[in-house]
């Protein structure tokens, strides 16, 4: 059931009627178009599309990992193959799935939401995409290098956080660490370029009337994310360059055999790595901020404090990195400091969760697919947040860090949080991008299979963590109480995979056969719904004017516009 007829906006918005299916060129012209485009919408979709492809590859690796761990003493994967799989799975999920998809979301939506015609620097934007794209294939190319595919090539096997000295020449012969380093170094450059672009676009390309205080929370959140990217990536690049110096020019930063420091890497890495986690989850918040209000039919509860909470979260996240290092032997003062700063993040995060519930309170909630994924997000992110609080208690962390509890915790963050909002985003904005609705029926199958599968997979891992199961082990002996939880975990993957299959089918099927969406199928309020679906090359024929936080609400409710209350 589609809600709200496509309201025709008033004369400020001139609409060019283009409809899906028009002007479809031959394959070669499509490819040429994608290769040379600098249009933010195409780049956005290319980011998301390639992110989804890597998601499937990294997901298959996860499935293989889970197959190996389904029973004790299994011989499905050799230890080295397994170690390469979890390294490539983690690295890919963070850098080739999470990052590009959120950049895709930003690319597609930010200019539309601020009423701009494109990103501030369209060519730089294309550069960012291609940096990411080539570094991704470079990383996968490692499978074909060195001893070749059969021996799993030179694929990285050092874990996604690549702790030294496992990466030093003495312990990482061949080129696996180099592939890891060079690929991420290159994609880091692209990420910074894209972040700069987002910042400049939001600061200087907002249309008339859109003050910072009227900017959609989605855009606000991405502004914060972009700043975090610019702050967080350089430490990563720095330590990667130091690692290369170690490996090729005889420097000794991390080479413990020559007196280097193993812990130095951890500081550098987590000064990047912790903000990175927020880089990945804040876009989830961004999507929540747009979708929950629309499907509750109410404005977001407490806009100013939501902006403040974003900034607070970003700020605090820069001072908590060593909570990944509670077991490394810091002083009690160090441990206490990082435990406290970590706990403080819970406050602004709590505010956000309460405000979303506050937004739904007293509304008229429509349980469309985007909203379902958002509600699941709320529930799952609550669990993720609370297990995070548990881990911030340093003594508790001494038991649980590097155990399966942590695997459960961060998958509740990354799947239960990020991936669920990515799904919500796709269901919500797909009609805008392609002019057709995604099938509701297929979507429901996707939602239930994936949600149930997700919990069946990851909830038991909390328990195997309590029972002392460490992460990153390729096998385990029988009799330690882990069998049942691992078996459940592995079975859950089947449901998740089925859900993903249906989702991918939905994306393809609905592209041709989906219901025509109209310009504003959800009866929403931000500017992107004022243009056609899909939007024309330059987004808006005429730059719209904005007088409140919900410009389309004002148009649809001339009797009770928002700007009266500002």
């Amino acid at each position, binding site marked *: 059931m589609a809600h709200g007829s496509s309201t025709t906006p008033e004369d400020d918005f001139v609409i060019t009627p283009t409809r899906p299916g028009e002007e479809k060129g031959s394959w070669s012209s499509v490819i040429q178009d994608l290769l040379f485009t600098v249009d933010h919408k195409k780049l956005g979709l290319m980011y998301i599309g390639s992110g989804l492809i890597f998601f499937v590859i990294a997901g298959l690796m996860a499935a293989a990992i889970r197959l190996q761990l389904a029973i004790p003493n299994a011989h499905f994967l050799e230890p080295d193959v397994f170690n390469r799989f979890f390294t490539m799975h983690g690295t890919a999920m963070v850098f080739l799935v999470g990052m590009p998809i959120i950049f895709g979301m930003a690319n597609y939506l930010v200019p539309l939401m601020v009423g701009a015609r494109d990103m501030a620097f369209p060519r730089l934007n294309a550069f960012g995409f291609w940096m990411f794209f080539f570094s991704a294939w470079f990383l996968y190319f490692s499978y074909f290098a060195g001893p070749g595919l059969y021996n799993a090539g030179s694929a990285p096997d050092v874990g996604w956080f690549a702790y030294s000295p496992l990466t030093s020449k003495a312990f990482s012969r061949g080129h696996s660490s180099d592939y890891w380093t060079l690929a991420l170094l290159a994609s880091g450059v692209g990420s910074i370029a894209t972040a700069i672009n987002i910042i400049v676009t939001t600061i200087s390309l907002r249309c008339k009337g859109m003050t910072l205080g009227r900017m959609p929370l989605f855009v606000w959140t991405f502004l914060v994310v972009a700043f975090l990217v610019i702050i967080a990536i350089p430490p990563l690049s720095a330590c990667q360059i130091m690692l290369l110096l170690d490996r090729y020019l005889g420097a000794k930063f991390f080479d413990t055999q020559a*007196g280097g420091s193993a812990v130095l890497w951890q500081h550098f890495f987590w000064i990047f790595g912790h903000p990175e986690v927020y880089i990945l989850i804040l876009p989830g918040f961004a999507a929540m901020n747009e979708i929950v209000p629309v499907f*509750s*039919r109410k404005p977001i509860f407490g806009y100013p404090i939501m902006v403040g909470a974003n900034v607070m979260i970003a700020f605090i996240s820069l001072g908590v990195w060593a909570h990944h290092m509670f077991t*490394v032997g810091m002083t*009690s003062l160090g441990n206490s400091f990082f435990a406290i700063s970590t706990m403080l993040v819970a406050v602004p995060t709590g505010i956000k969760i309460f405000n979303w519930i506050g937004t739904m309170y007293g509304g008229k909630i429509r349980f469309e697919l985007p909203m379902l994924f958002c509600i699941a997000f709320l529930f799952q992110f609550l669990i993720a947040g609370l297990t995070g609080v548990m881990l911030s208690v340093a003594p508790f962390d001494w038991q649980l860090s590097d155990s399966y509890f942590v695997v459960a915790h961060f998958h509740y963050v990354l799947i239960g949080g990020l991936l669920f909002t990515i799904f919500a985003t796709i269901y919500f904005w797909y009609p805008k991008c392609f002019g057709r609705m995604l099938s509701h029926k297929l979507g429901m199958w996707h939602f239930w299979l994936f949600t149930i599968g997700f919990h069946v997979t990851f909830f038991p891992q909390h328990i195997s963590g309590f029972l002392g199961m460490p992460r990153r082990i390729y096998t385990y*002996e029988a009799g330690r109480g882990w069998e049942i939880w691992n078996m459940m975990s592995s079975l859950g993957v089947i449901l998740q995979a089925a859900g993903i299959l249906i989702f991918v089918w939905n994306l393809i099927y609905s592209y041709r056969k989906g219901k025509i969406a109209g310009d504003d199928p959800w009866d929403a309020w931000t500017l992107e719904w004022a243009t056609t679906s899909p939007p024309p090359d330059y987004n808006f024929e005429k730059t719209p004017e904005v007088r409140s936080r919900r410009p389309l609400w004002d148009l649809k409710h001339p009797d009770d516009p928002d700007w009266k209350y500002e």
Partner: protein
Amino acid sequence: MLAALAWFAPTISTLAANDPIRPIANMFDPLGTPAKMIHDSSILVSIICLVIFIVVTAMLVYVVIKFPSKGAEDEKKEPPQVYGSSQIELAWTVIPILITIVLILVTTRTIGEIQDKKLPNEALRVRVIGHQWWWELEYLKQDGVDKDGKPVWKRDFITANELHIPVSDRNSTRPTQLILESVDVIHSYWVPQLNGKTDVVPNRTNHMWLDPWETGTYLGNCAEYCGTQHANMLIRVIVQTPEDFEKWCAAQRASVVEPPVGDALAVAGKKDYFANSCVSCHSIAGTVSRGVEGGVFGPDLTHFASRASFASGMAPITLDNIRDWLRDPHHLKPGVLMPNMQLTDTEVDQIAAYLMTLK
């Protein structure tokens, strides 16, 4: 492949050296002092989180049940537009801050209690040295004091993988201090029922302490990914009564017993052992087998056969298992740093027999 499957599946009970074996390393079933301190604050935190979880989930469920749209008709009229409320927002800022303060107090106190604990001089001291992928254990004894009056520690004896420590009860408390070092990459020492984990970091010395209340064999794992065989870097802590423990120590200090003259196999095995390069990586106290200069590259074998398991806990010590290992260590532990020595079948039989005499 199938044979391998059966052979690699040492069910834990076969490894039981001492009564009772505790295969389930449940952190909520602590059996030692620091683990208990962690447990107490963990329970408190878990309860707080559980309450928050229930309250917030209830709010969410309430909202979802109470405010669904009643269909297209209902949607013609928008619900009241509420933009926020300073009082409510203030409330749900202040309450979390208060809860956080409680957590901060509990946490910092437990950190101090465990980390800054001064251990008595009688405490047992053991250097635990992480290797890819096994543990070297060096028991220390006091050897006078230095000029500042601080005790000086020197080697008592060396063993591998299975850590024996005395139990503490009301009459005799004797905690153990572990001095953690690594010769290669980062490892982490974790026996959940006795304490949390502490990383074992090259070029750095970390400390942790154990103070178990009950005898038995406790299981743990290396918890920091350390390369190919991270999965099988198992930990076994054998907690004994003070008497048993002293007996064990005395046996470890004793020099090795020569293979009995009648045991031709073992006598020949001893020759093979010293003729092959086994000697360059392993040591047997009192012989020329000293390992690589300075340190040991492979586990100490002095009282090898007195242990319950080898290859850091992967397999029970039986003649068959040792033969298989000597034939090709990678068969049991793929990637292990001990090379395949290309021994002949006779050599394998003989050396295995010799190793079994190293009680």
